[in-house]
């Protein structure tokens, strides 16, 4: 079964052709990082305009690369949220138009389910259940995953997403955008001691994360010890120490969740999962605790359409389709799950 998948939830226009939910025939991502770099972040209005310009050429390119025509496609899967509505609507409109004109079934996919399923493009042997950690610019959440699209939220960030603090700290240090890869690469050059920043682990009763305190700690450190341009070693010490603190928290909460839920397999996905230090530390934890950890390769960790194609395939197999009235959803607030945090 050939699925044409479209993903435009944020700054990348992505189109893929996936066979049987596991083989990538094409996976095109028109990265817009160049467009956004000068603004130090994604500029939403710019993103939707750019999606409109690129989505048709990207769709053509994806079909060509897959040596498939629209008539060969068995179904169309599209991200319907969460994301920026203006951006999502571009992908949805194209998917719906193609489905209508060609009489193909359409199915809407949750972006998060895509991230949790990207791993199946490289590991057919992975079995359920597993612990899923989605860690990106917009999300930092732990899930118990029982099947494709069958997830139970165990914990999530209470303030900033991990990828967001990477971007914000990089901006505060004048390092540019995107913050993740810049900080990852700089940290590899750590010669002396990394600066120690606090780990906000919250209480052991919760699987939630908190990163805003760490962000403030870095800002406070910079106020107390201003950084001049020629202090590269200290800059590296700051970013490496910051990265260590983020990864430590992710690792400890993921470990706690795996033990609590009795899960032997952990899947880490989302843009931050391509961070090399994070991968190293998670692999080390897996060896020590006799668990298996899986990461999609970096190009499948960041936003891509192939992961949407995986979920779409499984939905079509179950006979699930969406009507042409399918709408985008932006950001439903995280559903209430009991918390031990009391405001005062």
């Amino acid at each position, binding site marked *: 079964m050939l699925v044409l998948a479209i993903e435009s939830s944020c700054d990348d226009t992505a189109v893929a052709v996936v066979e049987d939910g596991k083989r990538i025939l094409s996976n095109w991502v028109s990265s817009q990082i160049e467009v956004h770099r000068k603004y130090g*972040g994604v500029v939403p209005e710019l993103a939707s305009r750019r999606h409109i310009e690129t989505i048709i050429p990207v769709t053509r390119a994806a079909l060509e690369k897959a040596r498939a025509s629209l008539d060969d496609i068995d179904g169309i899967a599209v991200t319907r949220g969460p994301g920026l509505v203006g951006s999502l609507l571009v992908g949805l409109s194209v998917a719906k138009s193609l489905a209508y004109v060609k009489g193909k079934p359409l199915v809407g996919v949750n972006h998060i389910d895509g991230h949790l399923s990207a791993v199946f493009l490289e590991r057919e042997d992975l079995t359920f259940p597993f612990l899923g950690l989605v860690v990106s610019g917009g999300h930092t959440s732990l899930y118990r995953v029982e099947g494709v699209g069958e997830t139970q939220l165990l914990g*999530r960030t209470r303030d900033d*997403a991990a990828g967001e603090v990477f971007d914000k700290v990089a901006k505060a240090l004048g390092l540019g955008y995107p913050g993740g890869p810049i900080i990852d690469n700089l940290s590899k050059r750590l010669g002396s001691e990394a600066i120690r920043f606090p780990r906000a682990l919250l209480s052991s009763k919760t699987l939630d994360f908190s990163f*805003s305190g760490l962000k*403030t700690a870095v800002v406070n450190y910079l106020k107390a010890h201003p950084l001049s341009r020629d202090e590269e070693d200290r800059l590296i010490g700051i970013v490496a120490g910051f990265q260590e603190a983020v990864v430590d928290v992710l690792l400890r909460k993921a470990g706690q969740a795996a033990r609590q839920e009795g899960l032997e397999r952990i899947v880490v996905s989302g843009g931050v999962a391509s961070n090399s230090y994070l991968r190293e530390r998670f692999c080390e934890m897996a060896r020590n605790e006799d668990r298996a950890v899986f990461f999609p390769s970096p190009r499948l960790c960041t936003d891509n359409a192939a992961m949407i194609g995986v979920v779409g395939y499984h939905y079509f197999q179950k006979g699930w389709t969406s009507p042409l009235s399918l709408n985008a959803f*932006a950001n439903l607030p995280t559903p209430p799950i*009991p918390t031990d945090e*009391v*405001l005062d």
Partner: protein
Amino acid sequence: MKKTLIIDSHSAAETRRVGRLLGQFLKPGSLVALSGELGSGKTQFIKGLASGLGVDKNYQVTSPSFVLINEYPGRIPLYHLDLFRLSEGKDLEEMGLEEYFYGPGVTAIEWAEKATPFVPPQRIWVDIRWTGPNSRQLRIKAAGQKNAQILEAVSKEIKIRSFKQ
């Protein structure tokens, strides 16, 4: 009528309590603009605001920097906007965000200084300044009579209660 209120906060919890107090007095259609540098406590303030507006405490008020907007149901719904990723002076009108300004809920905008000309004149502006690792100064300014009345009420309440713990 109270136009400006200056409060010194000594912790994130104290910033949240000020936010909650303000939230208790806001009305449908109120607009709260927040400015202040990275890590100054804007999201903390809005967490308190949400509590004051009666948003279920199990809804985590998280930073919408990446997603631009989060909506929370409450006694009065809260629209939490974040302009961190916008370039300076971006036209909010073009983005459709102004639809929230005149809706039935309370709109709170982080990094409002990035789009000052597009923030409606009837507003409560909260500027948070860093005064030390754990201390901040909150300068709350009300524009318009309704907002001045709200600030007056907040100010009276603050005199009665102590915010330190």
